């Protein structure tokens, strides 16, 4: 429905709310109004009038609140009256809700949810900077100012926090495990950022390289008894080779076509892993993947030589987790440093130029095929490193870990963070992976929250959280390039 005019008189608002009610009834009539049950021989239909009625009433109340708090009609004229109406609105559906649940706790939850929505609407209204109170606008300006001045230190502060995390008093095994997972996704996000954010090639099959890295390490370690530190570069190299092999046929494709084909390649790798039983052990996966050693010292109770004996400290299983944490932290920082340096080199500039305008690149003598392949290969290499780490951390891998949803999550991290932004990927990975863990109690509603978050981001920050592009070279001062000028790339 279109946004009604700001100066809607009350009649128009009433009509709009009524129309919303009719639409909601039509939509939910069969979805919620009738419960179908498949009993042998027939289909049992149970009407659920209270559920339907309360849903429609809540939708109408929400619409009224949207009018009162976000669109700000001129009628009723005063702010207090509008807020009063909005505060009364959630009470209207109470009768139906009461008939439906009949439980004071759930009623309280419902009211809390509605008033939270009211508060959110009001905040959004002020965030648009059109409210009568300029205080929020000033606060926003101050925040931007603060970011301009101290933003460049933010990354350093994060690194210090990340280095100190294992020794914080509140850190336990659970926090370390979650942090390792977050760091793995940060690394994958940074790797994919090269392909999607810098070169502008939409890759939906990034998990393929993650899988190649994981299986390369697992097979090299279990068959040839190569240590983690020898197998890690080999796995990265193999993943890069696969990046080139997969890159070649898809280079002629652009945009959506490229996305679909890369998605298919991701699936092909997974299906090969399932079916090539003699090599990969198929769906049973590979188990007993060796753990990494610390300069030859093993981090196990009975290792020879073992870490705790060498340093004369009592054995603790947390040592190994801390060690893994530092490995992935180092790998992720390596990814970041190399990417940042590459951006300032001709090859990195060529990636970004390719994203901006491929034809102009060719007119300037840039071999676009090779440039795209280097982006694919280097992105894949970091994916391979992350894959080997994943294999050594889990000790067991199977094709189930490399489904399309992984590619989607990594891509979501890159898009959410702001394509091409390194710090954006960190924020997005912490919010998405860490947040996902944090709300484990919410069970299936987690997915709902996740969807809401995505929709919200697409509405308010369609270019991601951090959108400004930092120039790779400057004469006098480094000015960030606004996101509306930066192209997203055609593949």
């Amino acid at each position, binding site marked *: 429905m279109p946004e009604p005019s700001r100066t809607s008189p009350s009649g128009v608002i009433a009509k709009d709310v009524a129309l919303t009610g009719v639409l909601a009834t039509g939509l939910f009539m069969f979805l919620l109004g009738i419960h179908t049950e498949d009993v042998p021989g027939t289909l049992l239909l149970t009407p659920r009038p209270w559920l339907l009625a309360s849903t429609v009433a809540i939708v109408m109340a929400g619409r009224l609140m949207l009018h009162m708090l976000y669109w700000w009609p001129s009628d009723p004229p005063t702010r207090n009256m509008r807020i009063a109406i909005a505060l009364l609105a959630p009470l209207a559906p109470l009768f139906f809700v009461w008939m439906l649940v009949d439980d004071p706790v759930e009623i309280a939850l419902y009211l809390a949810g509605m008033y939270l929505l009211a508060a959110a609407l009001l905040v959004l209204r002020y965030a648009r900077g059109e409210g009568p109170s300029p205080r929020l606008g000033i606060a926003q300006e101050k925040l931007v100012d603060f970011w301009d001045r101290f933003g460049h230190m933010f990354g350093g502060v994060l690194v210090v926090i990340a280095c100190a995390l294992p020794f914080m008093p509140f850190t336990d095994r659970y926090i370390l495990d979650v942090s390792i997972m977050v760091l793995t996704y940060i690394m994958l996000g940074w790797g994919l950022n090269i392909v999607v954010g810098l070169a502008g090639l939409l890759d939906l099959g990034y998990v393929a390289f993650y899988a190649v890295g994981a299986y390369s390490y697992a097979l090299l370690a279990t068959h040839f008894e190569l240590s983690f530190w020898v197998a890690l570069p080999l796995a990265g190299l193999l993943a890069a080779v696969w990046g080139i092999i997969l890159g070649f046929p898809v280079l002629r494709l652009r945009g959506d076509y490229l996305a679909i084909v890369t998605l298919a390649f991701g699936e092909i790798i997974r299906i090969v892993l399932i079916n090539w039983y003699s090599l990969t052990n198929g769906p049973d996966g590979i188990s007993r993947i060796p753990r990494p050693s610390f300069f030859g010292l093993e981090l196990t109770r009975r290792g020879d030589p073992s870490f705790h004996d060498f340093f004369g400290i009592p054995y603790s299983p947390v040592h190994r987790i801390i060690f893994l944490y530092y490995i992935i932290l180092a790998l992720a920082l390596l990814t970041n440093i190399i990417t940042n340096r*590459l951006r300032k080199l*001709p090859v990195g500039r060529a990636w970004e130029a390719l994203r901006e305008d491929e034809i*102009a690149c060719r007119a*300037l003598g840039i071999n676009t095929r090779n440039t795209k392949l280097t982006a694919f290969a280097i992105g894949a290499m970091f994916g391979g490193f992350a894959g080997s780490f994943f294999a050594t951390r889990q000790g067991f891998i199977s094709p189930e870990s490399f489904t399309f949803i992984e590619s989607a999550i990594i891509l979501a991290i890159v898009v959410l963070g702001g394509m091409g932004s390194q710090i954006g990927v960190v924020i997005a990975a912490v919010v998405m992976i860490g947040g996902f863990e944090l709300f484990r109690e919410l069970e299936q509603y987690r997915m709902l929250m996740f969807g809401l978050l995505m929709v919200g981001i697409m509405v308010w920050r369609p270019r991601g959280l951090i959108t400004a592009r930092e120039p790779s070279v400057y004469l006098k001062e480094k000015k960030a390039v606004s996101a509306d000028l930066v192209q997203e790339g055609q593949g």
Partner: protein
Amino acid sequence: MNAKPTATPILEVSHLTMRFGGLVAIDDLSFTAARNDITALIGPNGAGKTTVFNCITGFYKPTEGMIALTHDDGTRHLLERLDDHVIARRARVGRTFQNIRLFGGMTVLENLMVAQHNPLVHASKFAIAGLLGLSGYREKEREAVERAKHWLEKIELIDRADDPAADLPYGAQRRLEIARAMCMQPVLLCLDEPAAGLNPRESDRLNQLLLSIRAEEKIAILLIEHDMSVVMEISDHIAVLDYGCKISDGSPEFIRNDPHVIAAYLGVEDDEVA
């Protein structure tokens, strides 16, 4: 016709033909562009001028004919056989586009750095020396920045070096695109309607820029243009195209008075008709 005699033309186009299915876009076209000359290609819309450019720069593969480019040292490149990026890199042909194609999200300076991609990639030893920060690469990069600065001063955009290219006014974008092509150190510069959409002042600045490039850089400039004030003022040599055929070729003075050209393209002043 009275084409200006030159010792070694940089560009020789001979018997160039380009067919798209049944459509003959260019029909047996021959012309040359000499060093230190501005050669203009004019003609009505759809005459095939941009197609000629796309054949020279390798974006189209010509159906028939030969396009030869001769460097100072005598090396010859047959452009009809090379890929677009090889033409730009090895034969050193720079071009601009009718609808400006800058890297809008990159700064003005970055645009000029991308144009020096190939020498820099070479100096960075395919990114390895660059990653390690070796001095050889840093030296080359400084040279590249110096060259970019030189051109920015020339197009009077030095103060906007750190602004995104898409933020520049239209006329400045046109000049930046020319500077970007010049940063490749081309021997042949192809400009596709550089004066389109410029106001008289900007178009005058463009003339000055092109004349100074001709005076200082010892390259051949090939120009497609509809703005006769630009064409007649700065070009040394004009070829006129109509329906893919060359209908005239010669000095601006000759073209201005050629009845074929007047009939096909230039037209006559209203009072002359009356």
